[in-house]
């Protein structure tokens, strides 16, 4: 398996100057043993990423919040089953995906008319974030709206890749051949260029 450099810089909490255990780069064991600081570092490192993974599955904000909280409880309770702590990102991605899809299925079952909407548009309407959120530029809005119109598979793939999840774990999470990731990534980004009209 090819591993990228660890730890992944997926959040705001990573201190690039700090020393890390190459076997347990996120101090997962300490966190599971109840070390609040280690747990907080995990939350800062992966919190936003888990949220965006859930959103990439087409969930609304409320459902994505539910899924994200569920993932943290599952990590606390099942995290010791992760034999290689370096594979934490893949475990989080897979767990997020599984429960996000569970919610999607329930939503579609409870409201069949939502099925077409979720399948065609991917994400629900871009609902407003906190009022004090950073004002997005026109270009950022176009990119976001373009991203929302991508096929769910593309959104999933891109959100894993921008989180620097190693290709091997991306392949495992999405059930695709590792050799096809590069080409699929290229096609998804080409589609994004087209729908967001950002040239290139």
């Amino acid at each position: 398996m090819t591993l990228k450099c660890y730890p992944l810089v997926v959040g705001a909490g990573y201190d690039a100057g700090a020393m890390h255990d190459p076997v347990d780069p996120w101090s997962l064991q300490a966190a599971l043993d109840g070390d609040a600081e280690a747990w907080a570092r995990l939350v800062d490192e992966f919190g936003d990423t888990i949220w965006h993974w859930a959103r990439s599955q087409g969930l609304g904000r409320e459902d994505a919040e539910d899924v994200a909280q569920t993932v943290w409880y599952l990590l606390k309770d099942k995290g010791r089953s992760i034999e290689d702590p370096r594979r934490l990102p893949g475990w989080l991605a897979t767990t997020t995906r599984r429960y996000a899809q569970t919610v999607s299925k329930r939503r579609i079952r409870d409201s069949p008319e939502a099925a077409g909407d979720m399948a065609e548009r991917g994400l629900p309407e871009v609902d407003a974030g906190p009022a004090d959120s950073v004002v997005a530029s026109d270009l950022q809005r176009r990119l976001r709206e373009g991203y929302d119109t991508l096929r769910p598979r593309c959104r999933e793939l891109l959100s894993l890749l921008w989180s620097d999840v190693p290709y091997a774990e991306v392949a495992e999470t999405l059930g695709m051949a590792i050799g096809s990731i590069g080409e699929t990534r290229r096609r998804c980004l080409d589609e994004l260029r087209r729908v967001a009209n950002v040239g290139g």
Partner: protein
Amino acid sequence: MSVVDGWKDDELLDRVHEAVRITDPPPVRLRDAAMRALTWDHELEAMQLLYDSAAEPVGVMRGAAAVTARDLTFGDEELSVEISITEDEGGATTLDGMISDNTMGDRVIDDPTVGVEVADGSAGDVDVVIVQPNRPKRQVPVDEHGRFLVTVEGMVAGIVIVRPEGRRLATGIFSLDLDAG
């Protein structure tokens, strides 16, 4: 030519990441909730998972009204709780639990509502609390035979059992998604 013409793939990936991050930030309260996950079972005694029907090769079907079901047993030397998770055709998920005091031995239950049956020592003098992410804790009624029945929402749950002498035991977090196992 647009200023963004010529972006290479890596730069476009970074740009769309930034756009999504800025236009769709997670709720601030999500961080606090994630921190609470660390302590949900603080000062609770963990019961071991003794049985999980999802680990069996073939799924179990229970009852005419139930679409699917999963049976779990958690316990220690003194107490065990059997939980059956069912999902009806309307999508409602129900936890049907039975708590047994393993130190009491078998006894006969003679109750007109359940008939006469031999059961492990019941543990009806306990409190049961359902713990779920993103939801308030719920204490549920337990009958004199140690049985409780509760409809739940959400994707996972844990159960805390409080004994009269103050022991507080917890199951692990288990999935309510019958497909997830």
